[in-house]
């Protein structure tokens, strides 16, 4: 069936450069976690040189049939010398096994980190791996009058991701970078409907957790002469492509300067039913402030929404979470926030938990486990106080704050312990 008025022919980007992807207009949920109001596209491209033809990425397996028809409209399988895999997620590699069967002579070019994924994708009966070459920034493939140059851009949004630059034309095949879930048969950004929301939504959910890697990638991309960006999803960006590069730079840069940039920052989040956990939070903050070089911010989670707090988390060096225990668990706003943190990078940040409880006090340990699961480091045992914290217990909160602050500033005193003394 033709794609929304598109024929099964390839669509020309430039003489010898074609889109051979597929449209998926009825998709509403992508990878479970992402919504899309009008589907998506799986973009694949063909580049013809004087001495060979390259295919850049493929499509989701269900859409292989139309992909092959479009591919056949511009190339014979025995002409295909090069397969570039910018990203091996199944929506881009679904047609790969069949393409390798039809074009067994093709040499595969992929990032170093993609090698193990390729092996995992092509499991038996496709146990014979194709001829593949791991490439990195600056490596090139000469197609004869056309050169593909690779850019090592890992973690956008998988470890294997890379971009491929067609030097002579100034075309950037960017994989998921600069992409979005937006399905429009008009294909090009100067003809498609308004996809700006989709572009920003895609960045926020797919790229934002890897902000540091986005900045590394932009350092490679920004110096290029770019006449067109050909992403793996959504419209092809031929009109003012550099605007989209600039927008990524803006999105990956904090909106306001962090006033505490010369200090370490600790954000203390808490919830409190009767004021006990709040009192603990205040004393923890007070203790941390006593250590030079740490700036503390105190937030009651009842006063905001997770999305807003995610911005704070993204910028903070340390995070403290205070929750009472209700029905043997931390309270829901804590979990709502913790489950939202997958949209930002929290790996390696310092985490600590605390809270008042009535009789069993499970919240602190449960929060600590979640923090470790999110790849925060939890160097200090959390603090639980039964019901109303007394003078000594509030002092213990201050001491916890100081301890946390010392870990943040790297001024903790060296300790020597025996493993048997550590709690299992």
């Amino acid at each position: 069936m033709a794609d929304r008025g598109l024929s099964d022919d390839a669509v020309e980007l430039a003489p010898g450069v074609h889109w051979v992807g597929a449209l998926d207009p009825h998709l509403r949920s992508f990878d479970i976690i992402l919504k899309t109001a009008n589907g998506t596209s799986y973009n694949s491209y063909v580049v013809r040189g004087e001495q060979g033809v390259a295919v850049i990425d493929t499509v989701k397996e269900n859409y292989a049939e139309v992909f092959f028809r479009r591919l056949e409209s511009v190339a014979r399988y025995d002409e295909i010398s090069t397969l570039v895999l910018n990203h091996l997620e199944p929506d881009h590699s679904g047609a790969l096994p069949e393409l390798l069967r039809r074009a067994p002579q093709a040499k595969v070019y992929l990032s170093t980190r993609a090698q193990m994924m390729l092996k995992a994708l092509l499991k038996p009966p496709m146990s014979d791996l194709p001829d593949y070459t791991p490439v990195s920034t600056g490596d090139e493939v000469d197609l004869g009058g056309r050169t593909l140059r690779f850019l090592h851009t890992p973690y956008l949004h998988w470890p294997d991701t890379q971009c491929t630059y067609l030097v002579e034309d100034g075309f950037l095949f960017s994989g998921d970078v600069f992409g979005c879930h937006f399905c429009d048969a008009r294909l090009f950004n100067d003809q498609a409907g308004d996809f700006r929301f989709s572009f920003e939504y895609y960045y926020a959910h797919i790229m934002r957790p890897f902000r540091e890697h986005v900045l590394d990638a932009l350092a490679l991309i920004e110096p290029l002469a770019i006449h067109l960006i050909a992403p793996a999803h959504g419209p092809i960006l031929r009109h003012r492509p550099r605007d989209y590069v600039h927008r990524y730079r803006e999105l990956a840069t904090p909106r306001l300067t962090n006033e505490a940039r010369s200090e370490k920052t600790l954000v203390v989040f808490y919830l409190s039913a009767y004021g006990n956990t709040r009192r603990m939070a205040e004393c923890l903050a007070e203790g941390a402030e006593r250590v030079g070089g740490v700036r503390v911010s105190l937030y009651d989670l009842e006063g905001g929404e997770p999305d807003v707090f995610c911005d704070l988390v993204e910028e903070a060096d340390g995070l403290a979470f205070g929750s009472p225990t209700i029905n043997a668990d931390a309270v829901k706003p804590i979990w709502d926030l913790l489950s939202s943190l997958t949209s930002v990078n929290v790996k390696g940040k310092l985490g600590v938990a605390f809270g008042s409880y009535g009789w069993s006090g499970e919240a602190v340990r449960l929060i600590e486990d979640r923090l470790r699961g999110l790849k925060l480091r939890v160097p200090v045992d959390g603090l639980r106080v039964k019901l109303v914290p007394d003078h000594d217990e509030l002092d213990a909160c201050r001491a916890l704050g100081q301890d946390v602050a010392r870990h943040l500033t790297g001024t903790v005193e060296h300790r020597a312990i025996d493993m048997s003394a550590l709690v299992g």
Partner: protein
Amino acid sequence: MPKAKVTFEDIGVTVTVPAGTRLIEVSERVGAGITYGCREGECCTCLTKIVSGGEHLANPSVLEDQVLKDNLAPRGHRLACQAQVLGGDITVRPG
């Protein structure tokens, strides 16, 4: 049983451990900054710089060697979920 001393440079803690202990068993308990993903030597999340005493760790397995190579790990790095302490003094920090 032979003992070893493992120092986690990022948090300033030295732990005396029995020979045969894997770094993951200690680092998580002391709250060192090494973070973990698959815990099975595949994902390379727990890449760890061996600051000194690398000779006191058991040699990497074929799998660990391959994962380190595929992830372009610099020399002197190991996977904390795989590296097993044999004895002596070892100092590590997140890779």
